[in-house]
C-alpha cells in the first residue's frame, strides 16, 4: 500500500516537471533557453515517472527496461541539445539579452 502512495506521488511530481518543460518551451525567449526545457525539465519528469512505475514493476528485468528507456532518452536529449545549440551558434542565431 505504501509503495502505491509513493509511486503515485512520484508520478504526479513527474507530470509537474513535464508541465514545467512545456511552459518553458512556450515562454522562454530564444532557442538556447528553450533547450533547457527539453533537456532538464522533461528528462527529469520522465525520470520521476520511470522511478514511480518501476516501484510497481513485476520483475527486476521489467524495471531495468524502464531505466534503459530513461537512459536512452537522457542520452538523446543531451546530445541533441548540444548539437542544436552548436549549430544555432554557428548559424548566428542571436542570444537573448534582457
Amino acid at each position: 500500500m505504501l509503495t502505491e502512495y509513493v509511486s503515485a506521488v512520484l508520478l504526479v511530481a513527474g507530470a509537474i516537471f513535464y508541465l514545467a518543460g512545456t511552459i518553458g518551451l512556450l515562454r522562454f525567449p530564444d532557442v538556447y533557453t528553450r533547450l533547457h526545457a527539453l533537456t532538464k525539465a522533461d528528462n527529469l519528469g520522465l525520470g520521476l515517472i520511470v522511478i514511480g512505475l518501476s516501484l510497481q514493476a513485476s520483475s527486476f528485468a521489467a524495471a531495468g527496461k524502464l531505466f534503459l528507456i530513461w537512459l536512452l532518452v537522457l542520452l538523446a536529449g543531451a546530445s541533441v541539445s548540444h548539437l542544436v545549440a552548436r549549430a544555432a551558434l554557428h548559424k548566428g542565431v542571436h542570444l537573448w539579452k534582457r
Partner: protein
Amino acid sequence: MQTLYFALALFLLLNLFAGMWRILKGPTAADRMLAAQLFGTTSVGVLLLLAQASANTVLHDVALVFSLLAALTSVAFVRRAWLSKE
C-alpha cells in the same frame, strides 16, 4: 490507480498539444525541431503510463524504440537540413 495513470497520460497529452504551438510559431527551424524532440520525450511518458494502465508490457518495447530513435531526426536535421537552409 488506473484512473490516476489515465489522468496523468491525458495531462501529458495536453502538454504535447500545447507544444504544437511552437511548431506553428517557430520562429527558427531549430525551435520547430525542438518541439518535435519534446513530443518524443512526452510520448515516451504517455506510452509508459498507458503500459502500466493496461498492464501490457509490450508497450515498453514501443517506448524503447521511441527512445532509441529520438535522436535520429534531430541529428539528421542538424547535420543535413539546417546547415543548407537559407
